[in-house]
Every structure is written in C-alpha cells, then in structure tokens.
C-alpha cells in the first residue's frame, strides 16, 4: 500500500520545472490502454493455445488412454455437446459464490470496523480471528451438513465461512495501519466515530480491504465447489463428481475448465470494483509510468 507520506524521488525544483499536468497524461494513457488490452488478450490466447497443444502432445507421445486423460479436442467436443447442462451448473455455482461472497464481505468488513472502533471488541475477537485462520474451514463442511441439512443454504454457509476470514483480517489490518497522526488530524477537524471512518479510515484502508476481498473471492469459489462435493444436487462440484464416478473423465475436465473460467471472471469483477472504488490509484500510476 502506498503511504500518504511516501516521499517522491524527484526534488521539488525538478518536479516543478517538469510540471506535467495530470489530465493530458491520463488521456494519452487511455488511448495507450486499448492497445495494451488487445496485446494482453493476445498473450493470454497464445498461452491457452500452447497449453492445449502441450496437452495434446502428452496424450499422443505417451499413448495415454482416453478414459485416463482425454485429448483436449475430446474435452472441448464434450463441453460443446453438453453446453446447456454445463451452463446450468455453472449458473448454480456462480449464484452460490456471489451470494456467499457478498454476505461474507458485509460481515467481514463490519467485523473489521467494529474491531477497530472498539478496543474491547478487538481484545475479545482479534486473537480468536487469528487462531481460527489455522482451522481448515473445508474440514467443517460435512459437519455443516449435519447441522443444516442438504442443499444450497448449507453450501452458501460454507462459502460465507471460508470467505469471511480473509476479508475481516485484511480489513482490520488495513484500518490499524492508518497513521495515528492522521486520526488526530481528523479529530482536530471535529471528525469522530462513523464520520472519521467514512471520510478518512475506510478510504485509507481500501487497498488492504480489496486484497482481502480478492482472496475471499478465490476462496468463495473453492467453498462452493467443496460444498457441492459434500451436499450438492447441482452445480459444477456436483457435475465433476458425478462425471468422475461414471468414469466420464472428459466431462469432468469440462467442469474443471468451467470452474477456471468462472474463477477468472469473479476475480476480474473484484479487480474492476477496486479500480472503480479507487480511481486515484489509476491516475497516480499513469503519472509515474509516464514521468
């Protein structure tokens, strides 16, 4: 996280003589950004193609039989043939991830704010929160089935539990890093309580909050798939498991690819939210890139 007090490498005189205005620099980068996006997309596509070729090569060279590792074209064919079914299961999993993640984000941030606002809450909960990090949350999934029964509410609960901790811990950590003098400056202006959080502390901690949200989103998907392994009647976890037990390995691979794509989309959505919430970061990095 870049600190507010971070000293700039340029001396005063040097920077003033350069005097680069912010806006033209930013606009220049926007044009640059479109071609950068295309170049990045091409790079990703190239990596995917190389991976598929390698996969194909391995199956041919080592003569691996189809029911152990099907060649990529067979997997893609399978996905195409089953597209509607696969899409349906993807939507189920996506729904669990989104609902669970949103609940976890709200609870996690609320918990982080409470722990920062109250010394008492912090003393009671912070050690517990750190210790609970060591518990493999996946291990309690079967227990939750016992307590809550089968079905989507149980899966969403697993998602919430697994995604909650990184959000709460990073959030609390970020809020604790707000410099004491900055809090005092706020106090000297008459900012206290909720207004101090809204105007100074939460924006200051946004970087840490979003790194927690990114980890939380990644874990949310894992939670949903594990939940479906344990208790699902639909969703990608269920799809993979039922395909595997029917020895339809091509179908299992189709499910895995769908999970990868879903994970990438979910992660990118959080990154998009981050850049929308912190526009000054983009402008700042544009400046340092061109300076």
């Amino acid at each position, binding site marked *: 996280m870049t600190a*507010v007090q971070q000293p700039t490498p340029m*001396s*005063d005189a040097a920077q003033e003589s350069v005097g680069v205005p912010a806006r033209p620099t930013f606009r220049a980068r926007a044009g640059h950004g479109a071609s950068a996006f295309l170049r990045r997309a091409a790079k990703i596509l190239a990596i995917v193609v190389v991976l598929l070729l390698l996969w194909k090569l391995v199956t041919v060279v080592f003569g691996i039989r189809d029911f152990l590792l099907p060649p990529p074209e067979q997997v893609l064919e399978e996905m195409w043939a089953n597209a509607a079914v696969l899409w349906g299961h993807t939507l189920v999993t996506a729904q669990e991830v989104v609902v669970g993640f949103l609940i976890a984000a709200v609870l996690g941030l609320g918990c982080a704010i409470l722990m920062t606002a109250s010394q008492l809450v912090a003393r009671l909960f912070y050690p517990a929160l750190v210790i609970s990090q060591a518990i493999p949350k996946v291990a309690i999934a079967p227990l939750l089935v016992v307590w809550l029964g089968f079905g989507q509410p149980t899966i969403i609960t697993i998602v919430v539990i697994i995604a909650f901790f990184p959000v709460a811990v990073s959030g609390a950590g970020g809020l604790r890093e707000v410099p004491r*003098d900055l809090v005092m400056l*706020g106090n*000297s*202006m*008459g900012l206290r309580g909720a207004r101090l959080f809204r105007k100074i502390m939460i924006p200051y901690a946004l970087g840490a909050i979003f790194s927690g949200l990114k980890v939380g989103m990644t874990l949310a998907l894992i939670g949903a798939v594990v939940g479906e392994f344990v208790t699902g009647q639909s969703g990608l976890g269920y799809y993979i498991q039922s395909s595997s037990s029917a020895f339809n390995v091509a179908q299992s691979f189709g499910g895995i690819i769908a999970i990868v794509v879903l994970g990438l989309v979910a992660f990118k959505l959080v990154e998009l939210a981050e850049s929308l919430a912190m526009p000054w970061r983009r402008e*700042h990095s544009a400046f340092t890139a061109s300076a």
Partner: protein
Amino acid sequence: MASLAFRSVGKTYRIQSGPVQALQDVSFDIADGEFVSIVGPSGCGKSTLLKMCAGLVPRSDGDILVDDRSVTGVQTQMGVAFQDSLLLEWRSVLRNVLLQIESRKLRIEDYEQRARDLLETVGMESFADAYPGQLSGGMKQRVALCRTLVHDPSVLLLDEPFGALDAMTRDQLVLDLGKMWLETRKTAVLVTHSISEAVFLSDRVVVMSGRPGTILDIVSIDIPHPRGIAVRESPQFVEYVTSIGRYFQS
C-alpha cells in the same frame, strides 16, 4: 484570536517497565497574536505538549488554558499541522484543503474562494485539481499549510511541519509561513528541531531539555517583522542562534 497558558504541565506514560516522565512542570504563557517556537532534543515531549494543547492527547499533570478556559476536549477551533503532510491521496489538492471545512459541517461554497486564495499565496493555485500522488514533498506540505489555515483558526499549532523536507525546500516554506503568519498575526506555536527556523519566525523561543522535558530558557527575539531572508546573516540573528545552540552542546 486567543491566548494560551501552560501551568505546571506534566505528562507521564505508563509502559511495561513502569511510568516514564516525558514532561515535567512546564509553565509559560503565549500572548494573543504571538508566534512562539519550542525547540529541544528528540523525545523531550515538545510534540506531546502541542497535542495536549489541541486536546488530542490527555495531560497527566497541571493545566492548559485557552483564553482562560481549561482544555478538556479536542480544540476544533485551532488549526493543527503535522510532520507529515497527511494529505488524503484520494482527494484533489483543493478538496484536501476543503476537508477542514467539510469535516466541520461548514458550507463549502463559502470557503472555496478562500481555499484557492491560500493556494495562490504558496504558488499552488494551478495544482488545485491535481492529486497528492503527483506532488513533491514540499508541494504537499504547502497544501497542508493551506488546510491548516482555511477555516480561519484562532490558534496555529505546527508540529515540525518541515521536518521531513530537504534544506532548500524547507527554507522556502519557512519564508512562506512567515509571510502567511504576518498577514493574519494569529497566535502560533511551532515545534521544531531547527534553531534558526525558530529564531527566524518567532517572537519568543522556548528552549527545552531532554527527557523529562523541562524548560531551560525562554528567549525573546527582538528582530522586527517582516524579516527578510537577509536577516539570517545579521550578527544579531547569528548571536541568537549560537546562544540557544549552547544549551544542546554536551
């Protein structure tokens, strides 16, 4: 405008190995419109003294009076500046200055012109819409000074505002501050490590000892305002600086 009075002020911190006396029996007065600097070695509690005056840190002993009223809570009528500029990187320069107004729930429209005027005094008017990430350390501290002044505070409390800057930038900012102070003649307290900075700006300089911080001397600087840059070469100025410097030679 306001006068300040410190009456046997003390500060004791409780740490694991026992109580630590940071400040002891500090007593002096600051008249309305006076500029007073506090110099002393690191850890003598001079910053703490300033924060206690603003009501940001509770005192352990004695009393601090602002216009004959004891400080019991945060003194929001004052303007405080810190060693770091503490600009919010998500706000433009102008909106950083206006945070002072927004936080006090005053009408922003009433103060926007004043904020722009202040930025102009320190040569930052063309950066009103820039973000702090684009500014150098000296430029940030200039904006912070404008933020300290924009709400027309009764007292200025400056906690080593130039401490993190290089020598050349620092000299320029000291001149800027002197100019801004002369325009309003507000009661001002500056905490600093730099004796020459203190002598240049102040009507009186309070010299403090190391921990526990106590007052060694209070020196009146009898050089008329406005003081130009040439003042610093005058024998009178040099004499003040060397005589205060003697307190810190061991």
